[in-house]
């Protein structure tokens, strides 16, 4: 029964229900008019008494209501018939006006429009025959992710509770059609309509601004499609445990992500360059240098963002002083209570001898004001600001802070990385614990191999599909090491312009594996390098004769 109901078009039901009364009125008026004409006495052309048959009455009334005036047929009317014709004309015209008016008002009805757009959304989603992602929440992060995915030919389906954002999708000019549903993404019905159970659904992204909603989306998506990946945004640490419990594959906390990046720039600047090169399109390992100073930092605002940044700054060996409006006991003497826009408060907090300022309050005008003031007092101060709204980007561009972060961008970057290259996420997470020396060596290696070219990263799984020739020989008992893959397929003396970053063998993960590492079937390797290196490596993987040639060389050496 429920299955039957789900197939009924709600829009059509509503239309029929609203049009019931107008249709009844129309039928009744026609019936009375036709019936009347069969009763009213008339005369035929020879003067004999005559009454219309139902056939003639129906014919006359049919054109009477719609056109008024094909004449009196088949014989000229008697006065009685004309009287009845007057009644029939006015009543049928009014009935038609009423009926058409009702039809138009139903079509314009917001509820009807909503039902029709939902139905067309469901049809569009059902027609998708390519991998797609369900994106819940079309805010700053959602907008960026939708654009990136669309440009990479991955389908996007959007759910948002704000109709203005749904309208924005049409004007954003995305390169592909994005079906969008106006509704609450936390409801299972919305997710089902958006196609989470479709075999083509790759992932569900919970990107709304509300943690509780994100949790509900994650849980529902996981229950409805246990095989699907879910990525969830959390703004509070308290919710992350629950999100992990209900099956979120990745949890993105924009504040943590930013704070960790900041810490990375302070502790392991080489790692930061690698990170940027791998995650930002069109940045090469050679460019980009950030020198974040170490020493005494000021943090303005002690919310979720401020707290996280302070913790990471402390862990990376800085002193942190906080300026906040209300006294916080856990901070002890490392705080100045007052309004940061007040120069007096700033001086008391010691802005003159601070190396850096982090402004993490939740209004952009306040952030801009505080940063300007701090620069006025201490022109050399390193400024890190939190931008709250994408609309204020022109202002922040004028301000030129050393680092500006918009949580939407942070989220978008993290989520895209997770979807595009999950291995890259692992690599970046593991390498955070490495020392600066390790990172500097890796960076030197990357610079030597890749040079001034844009670094692409890609994953390779050693299996029948991506490496048929290699797997065939492995099954025969031959042993291969990573160095073989890194050799140019057409010249044994040359190396490919690529670096292996991570080798995953079962649960074992090895960072920056050496050339002598043995590779096995089922291993998953993350490379970075020039895109041409990936294409050339494919030759080795697929062509047995290339493999034999390279192995021959190895045996000699």
């Amino acid at each position, binding site marked *: 029964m429920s299955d039957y109901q789900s197939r009924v078009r709600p829009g059509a039901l509503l239309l029929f229900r609203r049009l*019931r009364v107008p249709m*009844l009125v129309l*039928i009744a008026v026609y019936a009375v008019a036709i019936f009347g004409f069969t009763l009213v006495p008339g005369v035929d052309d020879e003067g004999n008494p005559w009454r219309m048959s139902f056939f003639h009455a129906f014919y006359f009334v049919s054109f009477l209501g719609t056109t008024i005036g094909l004449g009196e047929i088949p014989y000229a009317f008697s006065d009685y018939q004309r009287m009845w014709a007057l009644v029939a004309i006015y009543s049928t015209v009014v009935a038609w006006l009423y009926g058409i008016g009702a039809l138009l008002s139903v079509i314009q009805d917001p509820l009807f429009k909503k039902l029709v757009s939902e139905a067309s959304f469901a049809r569009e989603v059902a027609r998708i025959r390519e991998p797609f992602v369900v994106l819940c929440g079309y805010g700053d992060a959602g907008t960026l992710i939708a654009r990136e995915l669309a440009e990479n030919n991955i389908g996007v389906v959007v759910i948002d509770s704000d109709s203005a954002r749904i309208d924005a999708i049409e004007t954003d000019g995305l390169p592909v059609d994005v079906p969008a549903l106006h509704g609450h993404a936390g409801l299972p019905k919305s997710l089902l309509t958006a196609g989470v159970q479709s075999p083509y659904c790759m992932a569900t992204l919970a990107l709304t601004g509300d943690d509780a909603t994100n949790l509900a989306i994650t849980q529902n998506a996981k229950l409805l499609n246990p095989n699907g990946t879910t990525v969830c945004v959390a703004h509070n640490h308290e919710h992350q445990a629950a999100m992990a419990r209900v099956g979120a594959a990745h949890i993105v906390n924009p504040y943590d992500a930013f704070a960790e990046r900041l810490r990375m720039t302070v502790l392991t600047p080489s790692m930061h360059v690698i990170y940027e090169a791998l995650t930002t399109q069109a940045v090469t390992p050679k460019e980009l240098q950030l020198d974040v100073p170490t020493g005494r930092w000021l943090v303005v605002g002690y919310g979720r963002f401020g707290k996280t940044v302070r913790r990471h700054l402390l862990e990376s060996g800085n002193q942190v002083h906080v300026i906040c409006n209300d006294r916080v006991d856990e901070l002890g003497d490392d705080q100045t209570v007052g309004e940061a826009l007040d120069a007096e408060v700033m001086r008391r907090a010691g802005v003159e001898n601070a190396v850096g300022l982090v402004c993490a309050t939740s209004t952009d005008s306040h952030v801009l004001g505080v940063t300007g003031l701090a620069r006025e007092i201490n022109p050399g101060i390193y400024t890190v600001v939190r931008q709250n709204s994408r609309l204020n980007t022109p202002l922040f561009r004028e301000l030129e802070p050393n680092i500006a972060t918009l949580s939407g961008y942070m989220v978008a970057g993290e989520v895209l990385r997770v979807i595009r290259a999950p291995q890259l996420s692992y690599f970046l997470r593991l390498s955070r614990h490495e020392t600066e020396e390790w990172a500097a060596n890796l960076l030197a290696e990357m610079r030597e191999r890749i040079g001034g070219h844009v670094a692409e990263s890609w994953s390779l799984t050693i299996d029948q599909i991506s490496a048929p020739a290699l797997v065939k020989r492995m099954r025969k008992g031959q042993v291969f090491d990573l160095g073989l893959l890194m050799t140019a397929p057409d010249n044994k003396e040359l190396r490919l312009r690529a670096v292996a970053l991570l080798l995953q063998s079962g649960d074992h993960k090895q960072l920056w594996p050496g050339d002598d590492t043995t590779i096995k079937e089922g291993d998953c390797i993350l490379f970075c390098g020039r895109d041409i290196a990936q294409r050339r490596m494919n030759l080795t993987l697929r062509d047995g004769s290339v493999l034999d040639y390279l192995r021959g060389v190895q045996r000699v050496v």
Partner: protein
Amino acid sequence: MSYDKILFAVVIVLALTLNADFVYGDPEIIAYHNKYVLFFALVISLMATVLKFGERSLLGSTMLATSLVADVQLIGAALTWAYLSVDGDTVSAADSVTIVSLAVGALVANVVSVILLVIETASLRR
């Protein structure tokens, strides 16, 4: 008790009774069958159809279907009659049976419709 339900039941039962009124009598003699009764049987049947529009349940859809069948049969009977009596021709016994038998088909559909109405009413627990 709601007036909507009463009106609904009245229209559906009336469609059946008017249909039966028309059919009653020797099918070979058209004079035993009143054209006004056929007209109103058709009008009421159309109204019953409209009243059943937009029902969500499976039972409601089946009722709508029976009404549509009755409409088609009655319109068929009316058109046949109109066609056979064009230009004042008299309706023969064989033609008369055709017209009445079409209406009998509608009667069957209307009986099913009333049975469904009774089932729906009986299945409602108050």
